[in-house]
Structures are given as structure tokens and as C-alpha cells.
């Protein structure tokens, strides 16, 4: 403490000047006050480390100054100056918290020694304070990092189990109880086998500890828990390289496995859906070699015609599959624009007409009176409506009827396609939007299709915030209603 600031309060000028001189030589900065009032004023204006004050002064005396300092600036060291006759007063001052006292008269050296001691005390105090602060920061840091680890540990989705070298559980996180479906309470302090009833899991930990290697294993549902788990078990060594236990994490991979299974199922389904028509085509190729040799040309022609149809169907199936996959992945950009309802319906009817005429099916359009618009991607919507109309024609016997009607209700337009066709049974109805689902039976035997049309329609309709409603009675007909929000201000 080289730059210590010292305040000297004394009503005797000689003392003030003498102390000031003695201390200034040592490099201290000394400020003088002639009485208690001025001393307190200075204390409030400037910082001081040490105050030398006379006890007996007119006005505010040394005791009052000492009291004020102890009360307001406890870090300031006070040295009282007193005459020999009043040593008892100096003792009282010491009891009140003064650091030391100096009896008058005193030599400059003596005052220096006392002040040096005070400075030393201040320095030690400052050092102690510094250490205390550092220690506090250190402890806080440890506390924080511990609580941080605890938080991380507690929030982990993976189950974590920590064991000692005897496979006794010493720690676990909340997820462990949940994921591993542990019923034991408490888990800590007991062998792993008490909480995990799966032999392979217990052996995995033993193996990791014994061989000091990381062991990774998967557990199917019904072994450790009802979930599909992937476990990593690592041996833990101390800083000295001593094996002290193991840490095992269990990850719930049920969702991954489910997606995996769905993917495999889908691939298998696609493979089958592609292979079945190809097998038929191949069979027809075989038959046509024979048919064209032995039979009259008509069987040869018939086979060729069917081969063409089946090949085209196969290609459109692949197209539909690609479209569906694009729609589902959300990569398709819908270019929404306001479209007049009647315009798109008439467009669809025009495309579907030849198909209907070929079966002598009467196609009628029964529009509502209101001229309505909706915000749609024209191409996608036309394909969707076309699919519904085309299904109506396909599944309606010759001479039947397909009626397209519209109605406005509650900000929505209901576009209904009603046919007098073969209908859909109650059992089949819930599945018609499933991919590759096709109603099988005598009536549908000769109707070809990919089984993807309605799945596509559903994707398109939902992308336009629409709904689909299907009503059907076998042998009476089917009515499909697509509902879409109307375009505002149009």
C-alpha cells in the first residue's frame, strides 16, 4: 500500500504540521483538518486509508469522529492522538475500535512506526479479502459446473447408469428409470442385476469392466424394456489409470426402428406392385410367341393390346409413386392462384369425356348458382379432381351416370362427384386412401389402376387446406365430396 492516503485531524497546528511532515517524507499523501467537523467533511469527500485524530477537540471530538468512521467507513484505520494525562481515554478509544494511539508529545519516528503498522494491517486485510474473494469465486465455479453437469445429466434423453467395478450402481439419471422401466427403489447401491433383469445387459457391463473395452449392443423390445434400445458401455479409469467402474448409456431407438421397418415394408410393397404386373406382361410375352404361332391372329392381337395397357399402367404407377413421394417430402411447390371453379371443372369434364363416352356413361355438371373462386395450384388440383371423376367412370358399369355438382357453405365449396357405380363395401371404405389399396372382387377384376390415385388426391387436397368425404353403398354408387376454402375478395 504505497499510495495510502492519510487524514490528520487536530486543532493544534503544530501537531498537524509535524505529523504531515513526518509522513509525507515516507511518500504518503497527507490531508489536514483543523477540527472534527472539517475532518468528517473531508472523509465524505475523499477516500482515506488511515485517520489520525486528536481526541480532545472543540466541537466534534475524536470519539465522535471514531464513531462515525466505525459506522460509515469501517475499512478506515483510526489512530487516536492523546495527551499523557488522558491515556485512559485512549484505552476507551481502542475499545471503540481505534487501531492504536499515540501519546503527545511524540517523535516523528514513533508516528511513522504506528502508521506503518496500520498500513501493514490494511495490507493484510486487503490480501485476506482478496483471498476470500478468490476462494468464493472458485467455490462458485465448482458449484456451477457441478450443477451444470447435474442439469445436463438430468435433462439427457438417454438413460445413463454408472457402476463401480463390481457392477454395483453408483449413479443414474431420471431417464434411466423411465427408459429401462426400472422398478427397483432405490437403484443406487444395489447390483445392476437387481434393477435390470436382462442377463445380456448385465453381461455387457461385466464385459466392459473386465476387458476394459467399450461394448455396444442393441436390445430388442421385451428384453430390458418394451423399447428398442441401443447401449454403449464404457469402462471408466481414474487419472492414475486405475479402473474404477463403468458408464452405460441407453438410447431409445424404437422410432428409428419403426421408420426402418416402414421403409422396408414400403420397398417390399413397391417391389411387389411393380413385379406383379411385370410378371403378367412377361407371361403374355411367352404366350404371344405361342399364340401368334398356333392360334388365329386375334389372340395375338388381344395379348399385344393387353401388354400395351399393362405396360402403360406400370409406367403411370411409377409416375404416381414419384409424385406421391415428392408430395409427401414437402418439396413440391404449390403455385397458388385464384381460379374460377367452373373453369377447372369444365376442363376436367372435357378430359374425362372420351372415357365416359366409351362406356356410354352420362356425365352431368350441376353447378351452384354462385360464381366461386378458390386459391389452387391448377395442375395439381386438376389431376386430383380428374382422379375422382375418372374413378367414378371406371367403377360405374356401362350406361351409368356420373354427376359433378357444387355447393357453397360456410366459406367452403363442396365439390361432389357422384356415380351410379359398384360402390365400396364398409370393410374397404377405411382403406381406400391407403397406398396400393385396391378393392378386389369380381366387379373390379378387369379394372386396372395403381392403387395410388386416392393417396395422391388426399395429399393434394390437404395441401390446399381441404377435406375429403366419401359415402358409398355397394351396388348403388359412390359419392366423393372435396371441400375447399373459397378465395376471399374474389
Amino acid at each position: 500500500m504505497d499510495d495510502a492516503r492519510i487524514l490528520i485531524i487536530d486543532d493544534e497546528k503544530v501537531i498537524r504540521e509535524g505529523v504531515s511532515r513526518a509522513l509525507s517524507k515516507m511518500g504518503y499523501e497527507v490531508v489536514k483538518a483543523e477540527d472534527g467537523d472539517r475532518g468528517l467533511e473531508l472523509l465524505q469527500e475523499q477516500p482515506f486509508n488511515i485517520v489520525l485524530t486528536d481526541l480532545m477537540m472543540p466541537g466534534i471530538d475524536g470519539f465522535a469522529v471514531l464513531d462515525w468512521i466505525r459506522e460509515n467507513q469501517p475499512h478506515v484505520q483510526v489512530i487516536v492522538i492523546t495527551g499523557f494525562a488522558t491515556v485512559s481515554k485512549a484505552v476507551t478509544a481502542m475499545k471503540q475500535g481505534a487501531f492504536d494511539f499515540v501519546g503527545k508529545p511524540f517523535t516523528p519516528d514513533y508516528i511513522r512506526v504506528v502508521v506503518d503498522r496500520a498500513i501493514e494491517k490494511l495490507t493484510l486485510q486487503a490480501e485476506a479479502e482478496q483471498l476470500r474473494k478468490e476462494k468464493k469465486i472458485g467455490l462458485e465455479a465448482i458449484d456451477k459446473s457441478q450443477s451444470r453437469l447435474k442439469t445436463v445429466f438430468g435433462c439427457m434423453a438417454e438413460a445413463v447408469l454408472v457402476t463401480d467395478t463390481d457392477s454395483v450402481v453408483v449413479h443414474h439419471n431420471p431417464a434411466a428409470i423411465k427408459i429401462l422401466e426400472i422398478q427397483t427403489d432405490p437403484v443406487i447401491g444395489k447390483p445392476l442385476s437387481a434393477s435390470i433383469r436382462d442377463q445380456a445387459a448385465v453381461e455387457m457391463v461385466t464385459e466392459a469392466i473386465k476387458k476394459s473395452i467399450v461394448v455396444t449392443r442393441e436390445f430388442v423390445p421385451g428384453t430390458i424394456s418394451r423399447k428398442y434400445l441401443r447401449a454403449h458401455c464404457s469402462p471408466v479409469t481414474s487419472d492414475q489409470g486405475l479402473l474404477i467402474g463403468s458408464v452405460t448409456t441407453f438410447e431409445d431407438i424404437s422410432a428409428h426402428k419403426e421408420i426402418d421397418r416402414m421403409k422396408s415394408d414400403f420397398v417390399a410393397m413397391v417391389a411387389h406392385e411393380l413385379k406383379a404386373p411385370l410378371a403378367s406382361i412377361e407371361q403374355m410375352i411367352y404366350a404371344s410367341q405361342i399364340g401368334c404361332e398356333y392360334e388365329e391372329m386375334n389372340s395375338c392381337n388381344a395379348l399385344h393390346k393387353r401388354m400395351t395397357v399393362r405396360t402403360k399402367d406400370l409406367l403411370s404407377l411409377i409416375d404416381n409413386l414419384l409424385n406421391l413421394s415428392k408430395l409427401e417430402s414437402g418439396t413440391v411447390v404449390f403455385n397458388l392462384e385464384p381460379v374460377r371453379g367452373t373453369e377447372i371443372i369444365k376442363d376436367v369434364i372435357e378430359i374425362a369425356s372420351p372415357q365416359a363416352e366409351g362406356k356410354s356413361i352420362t356425365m352431368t355438371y350441376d353447378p351452384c348458382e354462385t360464381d366461386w373462386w378458390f386459391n389452387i395450384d391448377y395442375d395439381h388440383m386438376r389431376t386430383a379432381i380428374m382422379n375422382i371423376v375418372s374413378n367414378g367412370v371406371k367403377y360405374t358399369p356401362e350406361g351409368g351416370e356420373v354427376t359433378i355438382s357444387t355447393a357453397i357453405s360456410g366459406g367452403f365449396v363442396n365439390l361432389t362427384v357422384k356415380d351410379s357405380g359398384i360402390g365400396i363395401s364398409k370393410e374397404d371404405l377405411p382403406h381406400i386412401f391407403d397406398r396400393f389399396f385396391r378393392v378386389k372382387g369380381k366387379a373390379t377384376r378387369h379394372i386396372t389402376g395403381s392403387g395410388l390415385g386416392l393417396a395422391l388426391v388426399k395429399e393434394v387436397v390437404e395441401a390446399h387446406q381441404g377435406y375429403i368425404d366419401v359415402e358409398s353403398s355397394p351396388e348403388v354408387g359412390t359419392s366423393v365430396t372435396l371441400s375447399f376454402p373459397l378465395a376471399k375478395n374474389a
Partner: protein
Amino acid sequence: MAEKKKILLVDDDPDFVEAVKVIVESGGYDVRVAYDGQEGLEAVAEEKPDLIVLDVMMPVMNGHEACEKLKGDPETSGIPIILLTAVAERVTTSTYSHRDMLESEAEDYMPKPVEPVELLELIKSWLEK
């Protein structure tokens, strides 16, 4: 001229039926068709064929079921049955394995697609027995 032998062909794919029909007819047989197991049994009841070519995977009643029913009935148990199976079907549905074929009471089986010459030879050999 001896009367043409009657072959019943059962498969749910009309194009496949049509194709195999052309092949079998080229061998000089009288071919009748049905599109599922149930229809197949009905066709047999209506007119007893000399041999049945039966697809395994069909809706309503599959080939195995139809085969069991035919073999279980003394009236029809003597009719030779050739089961047809597609590789694709065996892969996608674990229901119909190679084992099923061996355990079946059917006289013989052939993979799909059917090789015309092989099928005709197989039919011929079973009709001669």
C-alpha cells in the same frame, strides 16, 4: 377324335389367365378359367376337370386353401393340381414359402412366369399317369 382334356386355370390376374390360357390351348386342351379359389371350387363342382392349374396367391380363397379342399373331398381328390407361385409373392409375404409348396398335397408346382413348353410337358405327364 378323342375328346379334349379339360384343364381348369385359376388365377386372379385376368391378363395372366388369358396368357396361360393361350399357352394351354396351344397344347390342344379345353381350358376353363376361374379368378379365385372360391370360383375355382365352384367351377370344379359344375364340371370336373382333368387337371387344375392353381395360383397360390389369390383374394377370397388362396390356392393352398382351395387345394386342401379339393384334396379333402373324395369326389375331387383324384384331380392332379399344379400350383403356380411367383417369386415376388414369396419374397413379400412370408406366408407362402418353398416349404409350403413341399408340404402341399398338390401333385406339382411351377414358378411364375410359366415357361410354355415346361407347363405343357408337366400337364401332359400328369394326365398320362
